[in-house]
């Protein structure tokens, strides 16, 4: 009986130690930030795909400014929500820089690099295979996203497993779309000057769908958080 109690205690300790990590997205801000970032990239890609090649949207300096403004907006927006809404309601947490966090960042960075190399190699050698050539990496990156989502977010909130499932299904659907459809999404001029339309189409589809899913899921979390919590009374601690 005592042994059973001690096993339960050990399990409770392990579960408690994971709670601060899961607290990071209690208000959905992590997902909202990700959603805005992906949709920001999607908007820029769409503008590039549907404008003449000499339009400003194809210029590298415009790209850098766009990304910079987007990242600044997301950074300070998230910070403001945490500062004025989350911390006064459910408390402040400063995280430790753990090995697993660095490893996650490394894996995600590698996955993005593989995607970039695949795009670059294909455009450099002008490989013109079936549409599987570019939609498959997009789908694989999508599935890596799903794994991260499951590990970092869905574990804390049961209904987020449905979000993870939706993302996984979308990844597979994008991979299976006919080349013509994907190419049409890519528009008249490619998002990246040297890429064929179908490649930018796969990219555009992927980031638009994922961005929308993140935004909806984060928005629902935020609304639920606001309903369930109230600012703490300012009394002595």
């Amino acid at each position, binding site marked *: 009986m*005592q*042994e059973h109690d*001690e*096993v339960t*205690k*050990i399990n*409770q*300790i392990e579960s*408690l*130690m*994971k*709670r*601060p*990590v899961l*607290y990071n997205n209690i208000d959905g801000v992590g997902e909202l930030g990700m959603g805005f970032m992906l949709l920001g990239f999607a908007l820029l890609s769409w503008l590039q795909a549907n404008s003449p090649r000499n339009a400003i949207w194809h210029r590298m300096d415009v790209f850098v400014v766009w990304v910079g403004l987007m990242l600044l907006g997301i950074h300070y927006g998230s910070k403001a929500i945490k500062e004025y809404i989350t*911390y*006064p309601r*459910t*408390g*402040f*947490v*400063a*995280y*430790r820089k753990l090995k697993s966090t660095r490893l996650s960042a490394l894996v995600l960075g590698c996955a993005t690099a593989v995607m970039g190399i695949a795009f670059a190699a294909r455009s450099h050698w002008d490989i013109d295979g079936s549409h599987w050539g570019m939609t498959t990496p997009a789908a694989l990156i999508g599935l890596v996203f799903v794994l991260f989502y499951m590990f970092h977010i869905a574990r804390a909130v049961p209904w987020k497993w449905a979000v993870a499932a939706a993302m996984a299904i979308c990844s597979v659907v994008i991979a299976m779309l006919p080349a013509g459809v994907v190419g049409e999404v890519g528009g008249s001029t490619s998002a990246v000057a040297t890429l064929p339309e179908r490649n930018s189409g796969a990219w555009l589809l992927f980031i638009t769908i994922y961005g929308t899913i993140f935004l909806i899921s984060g928005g629902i979390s935020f609304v639920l958080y606001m309903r369930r919590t109230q600012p*703490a009374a*300012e*009394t*002595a*601690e």
Partner: protein
Amino acid sequence: MNLKTRRIAELDRVIHEPGRLMIVALLSAVEQADFLYLQHETEMNKGTLSSHLSRLEEAGYVEVVKTYRGKIPQTLLSLTAEGRQAFQQYRRRMKEAL
């Protein structure tokens, strides 16, 4: 007294108390957290939480810093190096005792 019972008897009593164990486990996963966060996670009332924190502070396991976030008073809490070591040792001993 068998070995398992002795191992359990040797556990750090300051940490072994369920309320304090919750606090130490939560703080072990972060750099710093405030009083409100601990209250939200542990669902303890202010008095109970304060009393546990005082006991942990006395033992030298928790550092308490009183500050302000804007005009609002904030109590920041973190595990000391000694506290981290004691918690790691506690977990190791618990696992050994099973």
